[in-house]
């Protein structure tokens, strides 16, 4: 079924001129009360950093709601962009400064643990790949999360959980491995 739809192509090696925004990584301004920083690196199948990728994040606000007409719970204050975007550096690193998302009601009656949806774009990716960032200090919510529950294998599931950086308050680490032994779980949404 491809009726009429536009197919994807790679962003190529020069996305850096077109897609980054100066304020892209700052879903909220640095210093905003409650702000956290998610830092990580993007790796290829040889374990080398990917220096020409782009990470995008999309998430609910701390109240677990979206500023979007299809959120059935109605309108929210238009204060939180919810969207982050950061090109990877020469060492494959990215960072996103944001607020922690709240838990979300699931249409089937369950609850989704706090998470961010992530798109990864890069030369060599003919379409984006999609993953999720969860938080290590939400163990109880993570245990009840329907998406995490659908992943076979503790190690693969653990790859989606950002860990608190012991050296930097309010900072979480989340690396993405496109391929290889530690390949991140990617989703077909």
């Amino acid at each position, binding site marked *: 079924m491809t009726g*009429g739809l536009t197919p994807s*192509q790679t962003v190529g090696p020069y996305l850096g001129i*077109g897609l980054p925004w100066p304020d892209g990584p700052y879903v909220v301004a640095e210093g905003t009360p409650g702000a956290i920083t998610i830092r990580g690196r993007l790796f290829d199948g040889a374990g080398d950093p990917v220096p020409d990728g782009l990470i995008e994040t*999309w998430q609910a606000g701390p109240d*677990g709601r979206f500023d979007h007409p299809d959120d059935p719970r109605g309108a929210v204050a238009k204060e939180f962009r919810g969207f982050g975007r950061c090109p990877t550096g020469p060492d494959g690193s990215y960072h996103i400064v944001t607020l922690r998302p709240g838990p979300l009601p699931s249409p089937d009656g369950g609850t989704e643990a706090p998470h961010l949806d992530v798109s990864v*774009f890069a030369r060599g990716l003919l379409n984006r790949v999609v993953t999720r960032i969860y938080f290590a200090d939400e163990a109880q919510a993570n245990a009840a999360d329907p998406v995490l529950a659908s992943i076979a294998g503790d190690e693969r599931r653990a790859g989606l959980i950002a860990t608190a950086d012991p050296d930097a308050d309010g900072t979480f680490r989340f690396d993405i491995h496109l391929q290889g032994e530690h390949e991140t779980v990617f989703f077909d949404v």
Partner: protein
Amino acid sequence: MTTHPPSPPTAFSLPSYPRPEGLHPPLDSPGYRSTALRAPHQPPLLIPQRLTEITGPLLGEGRVAPADADLTTQHAGEPLGERIIVTGRVLDSDGRPIPDTLLEIWQANAAGRYHHKVDQHPAPLDPNFTGVGRCVTDSEGRYRFITIKPGSYPWGNHYNAWRPAHIHFSMFGRAFTQRLVTQMYFPDDPLFPYDPIFNSIPDPRARERLISQFSIDLTEPDWALAYTWDIVLRGTGATPFEPQDGAR
């Protein structure tokens, strides 16, 4: 930020965006060598679309200045090359226009060189051309850019590899599931048969949908040729429609 009491976890329904089976290039496309170490080996895990997937950033006017849609007026002088108009609509596959949605484009200059430090193709940079544009669709989903026809350029994928002339396009739609980054090509490019990126799209009819059409009607006399290209993002399948193939 205003806080709201969490809703009770009772069942509710959300729109869904059917997956376009067989539309996009397989990530593992050996003809395009950069896929070798970057395409995941595990098949993606199918998950139901929930709130995070059926919503998305509604990025509109605040991100774009009117001048961002004219790539020929961003510097002191005019860029070299063939001035063109690129225009069309952003629709969903149900035939509905997507208004107020952000488009971002980037491209090589007329000589086939990107304004990017990694691009070492021995063709001239143009001090009057950066090759980056943005605009927001109008109430009927229309967009319009003024730019320079990009040149073809060589790349290292295989011996004598050249990319067909193209403009990179990035679209958000209104849901995370609709996010799309692709490339628009120009009609009758002799490089199509040799390009592994273009040919990574399995369905030849879907490939054709990335090729813009020349429009004499939208061409402005004594000023610029026009190319039209419509972008169709995933719909909710509410009223499926199959556009006439001639219309692309």
